[in-house]
Each structure stands twice: as C-alpha cells, then as structure tokens.
C-alpha cells in the first residue's frame, strides 16, 4: 500500500487508502445499470391497505385463526343446522321422551325396521320429547343474535356519544362524562334484573295490542330478549363511549381536523367523515369483545329463568332446564353448557387476536 503523501496540516482529503481498502474499482463498475439491475432495486412488496395489513397479522396468530374457525363452525351449526334436521325446536315427539344421545324410541325402531329413514337424536331428547340437537342449534342462534345485536346497539350509541363528548370538549364534555361515570358506577346486573321485571307487562301489552309493523317485527324475539336489548342500550355503551372519547381527544388536535374546519366542514361532518373512520380499529375491537359479554349476560339471565320465554330456548335456559334432571340426564346440562363455553371462549380469543392485529400498540 502506498504511503500517504499528504503533509500534516494540509486541507487535501486523503482518499487513496479508503478507495483501495476493500475491493479495488474496475472499469466495469462505471457502466450504466442494466434494466434487470434496476428492476431488482425496486421494492417488490405491494402496498397494503389497513385491513390487508391487519388480516396478514391476524393470519399469523394461530390461536385467533383457530377461534375464527370455531366461530364459523358454530355459526353454520346454528343457522344452517336446523334445516338438515327433520325436527323443529318446539315439536314434541310422542314416545321419544327422555332419550339418551344417539338412541331411538321403540316406535322409531319399528319405523326403521320397516325401512323408513329415521333421523337419530344426536343429543337425545328432553322430558317433552323435543330433540335436543335442534334446540341447542336454536339456542346457539339466539345467543349469537343477542350478542351481535346488543353489540351493534352499543356500537351506535357508544361511538356517537363518545365522539360528540370528546369533540365538543369543555363543559359539554364534563357533563357528559359525569353521566357516564354515574352509569358506570350503577351495578349493572341489578338494573338488568329490575328492567326484566318492570318491562315484562308493558312490553307484553305493547306486542299484543300494537298493529304497527315495526313493533310486530320485534314481537318475534319475545319480551325477555327485547328487554335485554333495552338494557344494553341504557347501560352498556359507557365503556365504548369512553374508548372513543379518548381516541377522539387524541385525534382532534391533529392537522387534518383543523384543515377540515378551515374548509368549513360542520362538526357533524368532521365527526362522521374524519374522526370516526380513524377510530375504526378500536371500534371494531370493542364491538367484537362486546359480543361474548352480551352472550354471557343473556345466558346468565336465561339460566335464572328471566331471559327468553318458552318455547324459545337459549343455551342458558336449556342448561337451566337440564338442572332438574341432573341425576339421570346429565348430558342435557352438559351439552348446552359446553357449546356456550366454547362459543364465548372462541369469541374472546378471536377478539383478543383482532385487537393485536388492528392495534399492535396495545399488544403486551
């Protein structure tokens, strides 16, 4: 290596040793790049939308994906299942009372011997000869419906309340948050029970006498379920509204909100078009985690005999019916309980996975 010829104190940059250090440059290094070389430098990764990105992260989470699979199976079981079973949930089959799972009554055995096709009672039958499989399917359907509807109610009320409170701020916010605090400290289950008692008679009257098509369509779900929805509308939106408020407080000081304000957008438009879409991750996650808690509450009420009214059955009321015959027919208690537990568990796990996927900052 040639010795540096630069004298001490000179301003001339001493580049020779640097250039010679690793690989010596050849003439080929100064050729223009070919098309292939240029192409290889371009980042090949496709641009990903928010949802694609979240989905990619969710797919890597095995637990959440298994939970999603289980949820899909349960939904199919609950909504498609009854059409494959020849019995209905209120049909009382004479002579087939109290059958164990996968057994037949004498009548059915005779029919089978005569060459008729007899559908097995996969989960057995209850004291009135109703097929438990169909009842569990209907129960799961009701639980799912309650969960989703209640969460949607919470979603609508909570996000509107929270975003208005957060966006307006000041005294309005203070008053609105005091109300939330008040509702938050009311013991919810007690009020739910109270509402079940109070709403029963007026709602029954309303459903019996009213001719308006809107109310008619509600009467199908029964008084018990309807009062559960009212309860959710009254009490359960508070945590959602707190989350949305926090998010809106964070967002509203950002430039795009000011830009919208400068362009003359109304408050309503800013909340609808700018603030809420930016909270979408939190909204989806909170709604999703609300579903299992609504199912939880509904089964709790039905188990105590306050939720759905006969002949409709939910998983909670099926378990409660099964409690009477615990010594001889334990399966009647176990089957709905297991289905319910699996349902709530997988919804919880999926919700957790969704939270990690949509909002990686929250992940612990």
């Amino acid at each position: 290596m040639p010795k540096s010829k630069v004298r001490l104190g000179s301003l001339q940059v001493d580049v020779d040793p640097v250039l010679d250090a690793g690989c010596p440059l050849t003439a080929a290094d100064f050729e223009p790049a070919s098309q292939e070389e240029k192409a290889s430098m371009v980042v090949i990764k496709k641009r990903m939308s928010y949802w694609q990105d979240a989905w990619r992260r969710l797919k890597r989470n095995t637990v959440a994906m298994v939970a999603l699979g289980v949820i899909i199976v349960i939904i199919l079981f609950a909504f498609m299942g009854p059409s494959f079973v020849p019995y209905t949930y209120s049909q009382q089959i004479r002579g087939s009372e109290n059958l164990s799972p996968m057994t037949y009554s004498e009548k059915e055995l005779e029919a089978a011997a005569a060459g008729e096709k007899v559908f097995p009672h996969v989960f057995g039958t209850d004291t009135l000869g109703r097929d438990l499989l169909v009842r569990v399917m209907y129960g799961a359907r009701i639980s799912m419906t309650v969960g989703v509807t209640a969460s949607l109610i919470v979603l609508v009320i909570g996000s509107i309340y929270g975003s208005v409170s957060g966006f307006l701020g000041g005294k309005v916010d203070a008053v609105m948050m005091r109300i939330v605090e008040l509702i938050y400290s009311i013991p919810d289950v007690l009020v739910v029970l109270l509402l079940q008692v109070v709403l029963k008679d007026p709602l029954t009257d309303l459903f019996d006498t009213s001719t308006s098509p809107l109310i008619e369509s509600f009467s199908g779900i029964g008084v018990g379920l309807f009062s559960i929805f009212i309860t959710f509308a009254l009490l359960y939106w508070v945590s959602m509204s707190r989350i949305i408020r926090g998010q809106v407080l964070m967002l509203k000081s950002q430039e795009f909100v000011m830009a919208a304000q400068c362009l003359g957008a109304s408050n309503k438009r800013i909340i609808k078009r700018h603030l809420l879409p930016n909270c979408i991750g939190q909204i989806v996650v909170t709604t999703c985690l609300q579903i299992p808690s609504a199912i939880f509450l509904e089964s709790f009420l039905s188990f105590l005999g306050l939720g759905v009214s006969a002949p409709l059955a939910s998983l909670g009321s099926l378990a409660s019916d099964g409690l009477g015959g615990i010594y001889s027919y334990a399966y009647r208690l176990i089957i709905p309980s297991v289905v319910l537990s699996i349902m709530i568990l997988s919804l919880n796990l999926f919700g957790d996975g969704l939270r990690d996927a949509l909002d990686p900052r929250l992940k612990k």
Partner: protein
Amino acid sequence: MRRAGSEEMLEYVLKRVGMAFLTVVVIACITFLMMNAIPGSPFLDERSQPPEVLAALEAKYGLDKPLYQQLGTYLTSFVQGDMGVSLKMQKNRDVAEIIFEKFPVSVRVGVWAILNAIVCGIPLGCIAAYNRGKWVDSLLRIITTAGVAIPSFVVCTVLLIVFGVRLSLLPTMGLDSWKNYLMPCFALSFYPMCYIARLMRSSMLDVINQDYIRTAKAKGVAPVMLIFKHALRNSLIPVITYLGPMVAYTVTGGFVVETVFSIPGLGRYFIQSILARDYPIIMGTTIFLSILIIFMNLLVDIAYKIVDPRISFTKGGE
C-alpha cells in the same frame, strides 16, 4: 408539600363520597319510579273491592299523593330502615328483617369465595410470571383463559355433576356443614381467581423487568423472596383495582351459585322474589345491594389512591 397532598386527598375522598351518595340516590329513584311504572295497583289482585274501599286503602298507604311525595316518603322511610312488607313470598313480613336474615348466609359464602380468589389467584399469577414461557405458564394460561370465559353456572354444574352426582363426595344442596361450602365457594371464586391470576401475571412481568429487581437479583436475593417480597408489592396495584368489581361480581354471581346449590341466601331469595314479582322485596334488595356494591367500590378506590402515591388525585383525562 406534604400538606398539599393530604388536602388533595381529602378533596378526592369528599368528591368520591359525594358521587357515591348521588349514585345511591339515583338508583333508589330509578328503582322506585320503575316499580311505579308497572301497571296495576297492589290492592287489585285479590277479591274485587268497591271503589270507596280502594280509595280508602290508597289514602291509608299514601298512594293518592303525587308521585314525588310518594318518592320522598319512600326514601325517608328507607333511610329509617323501613323497606315495606313482603307481598307474596312471606306475606306481611318486614323486608328489612328478611334481608338481614338472608344476607349473612350470602356473606359467609361470598367472603370465603373472595378470600379463595385472592389467596389462590395471586400465587398462581406469580408462578406463571416466574415460569414465563415454560409449560407451567402455558398450562396456567389455558386454565385462566378458559376460567374467564366460562359462565359461572357452567362451573357450578360441572362441579355438581362430578363431585356431587358421580363421585357423591360432597353434598349438593344446603349449608349444613363445612363440606357444603366447598363447591359453592369454589364455583363463585373461579372467575375472579382466574382474572386475578391473569392480572397478576402481566403486572408481575412488568415489574420483573425493572431495575430494582435486577439490583436485588445481583445482591443475591433468593428467587422466591424476589418474587414474593420485592416484586409482589408493586405488582399488587392492578389487583387492588379489581377488588371493587370483584365484590360486585360476587354479589351477582351469588344469584346463580345460590340457585344451583339451593343455598338459603339473599341471592336466591332475590331471584325467587323476582320470579314471584314480590315488588317490595325486589326494591329493597336492589337498593340494598347497590349500596353495598357502590360503597365497596368507593373504599377500594380510596385504598388504591393511598397505596399508590404515584397516581395524582386531581382528575386527569384518563
């Protein structure tokens, strides 16, 4: 400086107490008004009476007065301990008397359940955090995840079928001996225990990574001492915040557990009176239990502020 802190504390406590009182009053009013909204009069259900008799009865019980006066009367008599009399369950018996007869039974089950949840939940969380990533942690995580998802009546019925019916080890109903307490207390404590274990695990993991723990480790503190003495104190704070909701859960979870195991407590009685539509009992019990839950929450909140001086008393955004 110190003085300012205690003044702040006083202000906070006063504010919280005021809020709690307000909540109780609101609940009492809601309960009263909702019960009044139910159609029908208490004197209508038996034999039909001439209108003069009805009017006289209503005048006697003050039902002819405007609603706000009735509300005032109800609230003042409630404060004096008069919650009216039972209409159906135990006819004409004083509601307050019934509550104070039934409530101690529920308290006995509930206190054991809370103790069990704390005594078992905290060590389980510590063990999981200490063995992070090993099979013990995974096993505990599976159990606690299931535990917070499974409804309490499922836990009750599984216990009932396994220990009560199949193995016939434990009695399935009543509260005669200590054996009767095992299943209800465990069933009631299962959810809070799992919840506490999860809380404990995550807060313990936060604490374990802090510098002072490393210092203690470097000084040669034994692992058991490290976890149960040095790390435990700071990681207990989230668990303290859960104590309030846990009391509420124990009260409402007691409804199910007492119903399943036929325990003659207030929870079961409350559900029975709801099904029988015995309004004075429903009102009295709802307000009584609400007061209990709200004041337990209040105590826990204040305790939380005392335990953790890092939290400011003046109410911030979150």
